[in-house]
């Protein structure tokens, strides 16, 4: 069964050719491919093998898994997940304890060099990584072990991608993202707190369909979903351009749906697909609900100033530095004053009794 192609799997589940075509068309749409590519997707799907996937959860809140599984009815995403061979997922799998670990090792052995590793959560390094262990193994050990035989790693969520919440100052566990530990494998970052479900599935679909990684940006994110900022695709953008801003959450501007920039929206510096894909089956996204973007798909978003502080304001108050600088300036100024006064006084003392002889050499 492991060697079944996607097409075979779907047919075995009683899906007709029409259903397969529909599946391919929807997948192409999800991957933002032109409709003419649906045929290519179909062709690829007809021959693609279902991959082995191992999902590792480290310092995380399970929000990413929640995001992925909180679809109330079978959707294309869940169907897609049915087609992969999810051999290890602590939260979702039925097996527990040593049986679970054995399943993971078996899956790794069977697909060594070819399986996908999905990671959510950051990895603590401080004090030998004791802050997160599973079956007596630190996350660091587990990640190194599992990553060794992986074809590629998908960092699901901001914690795995950039460190996320555990990484925020003062980072008590010494948390780091996957990319700081694994440097010899292709890594796809799918940041977000949590990431949009369709983005996660699209990355898998792309890998499934074409067997390659999608095109990534400088921060390792698929360009198809993270290529544009929230601000660029925001339906409230015209208000920004016209200079119409909500000043508080219950003022006239807020009621009129004006731009939330002044209320701390991080849309301009946040790259994600929320403004177009939206959440909960396309119902809405934070800005549409009247709240600014938190910037959750960007590195260090917890430390990039308060969520309600405007993007153009200081992250840390400057008053302390300013006061210290003024004090230092005054102290140095006094020293310079004394030095200047002394120099001038010396010059006055050295002033000769001038005669006309002093006008010529």
């Amino acid at each position, binding site marked *: 069964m492991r060697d079944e192609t996607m097409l075979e799997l779907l047919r075995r589940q009683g899906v007709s050719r029409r259903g397969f075509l529909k599946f391919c068309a929807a997948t192409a749409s999800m991957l933002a491919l032109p409709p003419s590519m649906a045929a290519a997707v179909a062709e690829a799907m007809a021959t693609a093998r279902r991959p082995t996937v191992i999902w590792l959860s480290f310092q995380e809140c399970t929000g990413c898994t929640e995001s992925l599984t909180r679809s109330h009815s079978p959707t294309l995403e869940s169907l897609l997940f049915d087609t992969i061979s999810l051999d290890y997922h602590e939260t979702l799998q039925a097996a527990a304890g040593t049986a679970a670990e054995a399943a993971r090792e078996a899956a790794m052995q069977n697909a060594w060099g070819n399986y996908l590793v999905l990671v959510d959560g950051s990895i603590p390094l401080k004090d030998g990584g004791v802050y997160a262990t599973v079956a007596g193994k630190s996350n660091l050990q587990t990640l190194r072990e599992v990553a060794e035989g992986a074809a590629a790693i998908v960092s699901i969520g901001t914690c795995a991608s950039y460190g996320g919440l555990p990484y925020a100052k003062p980072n008590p566990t010494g948390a780091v993202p996957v990319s700081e530990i694994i440097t010899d494998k292709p890594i796809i970052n799918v940041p977000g707190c949590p990431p949009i479900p369709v983005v996660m599935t699209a990355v898998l679909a792309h890998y499934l369909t074409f067997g390659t990684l999608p095109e990534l940006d400088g921060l390792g994110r698929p360009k198809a979903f993270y290529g544009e900022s929230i601000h660029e695709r925001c339906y409230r953008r015209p208000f920004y351009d016209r200079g119409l801003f909500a000043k508080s959450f219950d003022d006239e501007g807020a009621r009129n749906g004006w731009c939330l920039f002044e209320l701390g929206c991080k849309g301009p510096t946040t790259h994600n697909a929320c403004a177009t894909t939206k959440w909960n089956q396309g119902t809405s996204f934070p800005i549409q609900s009247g709240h600014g973007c938190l910037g959750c798909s960007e590195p260090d978003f917890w430390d990039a100033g308060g969520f309600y502080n405007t993007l153009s304001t200081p992250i840390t108050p400057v008053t302390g530095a300013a006061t210290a600088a003024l004090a230092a300036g005054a102290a*140095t100024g006094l020293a*310079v004053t004394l*030095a*200047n006064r002394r*120099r*001038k006084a*010396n*010059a*006055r003392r*050295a*002033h*000769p*009794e*001038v005669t*006309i*002889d*002093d*006008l*010529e*050499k």
Partner: protein
Amino acid sequence: MSATLEKGLNALREQIDAPIASYFSSCVRCGMCAEACLFFTETRDPKYTPIHKLEPMRRLWEQEYTLSGRVKKWLGLAKPITDEELEAWSPLVYDSCTQCGRCSMVCPVGNDLTYMIRKLREGMALSGHAPPDVVSAVNRTVTLGSPMGVKLKALQAQIRDQEAETGLTVPINVQGADYLALLSSMEIMNFPEYIGSLARIFDRAGVSWTLSSEAFEATNSGIQIGQADLAGAIVMRIVTAAEKLGVKSVISPECGHAYTALRWEGPNLIGRPYRFEVVHILELLDQLRRTGRLKTRGKVAEPLTFHDPCQLVRRGGVVAQPRRLLGMIAADFREMDEHGVWNWCCGGGGGVSASERANALQLTSFRRKQAQLEKLNVETMVTACANCRIVLEEGLEHHHMDIKLVGLTELIAEHLEE
């Protein structure tokens, strides 16, 4: 002879004050002062840009009175000020600056460049980089009492002539007179009519006045060369004589820088206020006019204009008086396009006319005045500064212009009511 670089630099250290520091801190190198300087406008040579003339002093200020400059100097990154450099700067500081003060009015950040040039000359003088002719003039003023070497005997001869001409007595050393009148050697030697004019006007107006045999010379070469001690000594002679005679006022003659020296710099040079007041002759004449003691008859019919001496208007505040006086006697008074505090210099003030080596440049710079005059179509130009008058006469002659020059006091005297 004992001028040294160190003495010069030391003088600059002493002179640099808060205004100068604020000026150097504010300069943005916009170059607008160039367009205010007739040595630039008539040559278009950027080296005559006023702020550039101050470069050695700017560097000294930066190196000695700012923290960043001190650090630069300590790191060996600062270019020291040398004798060679100061010598090279001498023509910029002396020959091409008449202290006219126009740049100080134009500078958008408010730099008083003239104030700074005056201070820079303190350093130039004591480091031995003043023009030789100006040094000689100072020498003569200090040793003989007058930059042109005019002695009491020469003055007495001129007084006799004027007494004969006017039939009036010119009072000398009259204890307790109200006014002590001063003269410039140029007036004594070139325009002695000024003495006669004073005698006639004061006689008619009933002004109690006198000359002093101990202090008749008002010009102050110490101001022009920029040496405060010597300038102060020259001022002190007048102060001593005036206070000895017990006069209420001292009259500055028709000479721009003499007025500056006596009225504005004097108390600061001698370090105390005077026990008398200083008025320019035009201020006194206007006062007499106002009180009805100065009465004229008839008016000059031909068109005439007035050349404002810089030290009188821009640097002295005597602006309205000459116009009111001319209003009494001129039927067709024509103002130059830029006049009053916005006048253009004759080109020979601030010691420039005293320096032989500046002569060609001075004549070139006269073109500015020439252009102003050509727009007016006047036959007569009145002024109130003997130095301006001589410089203008040279310029008019050199540029073949047929315009008569006359001192305002003389012109008033000619129109006195009988």
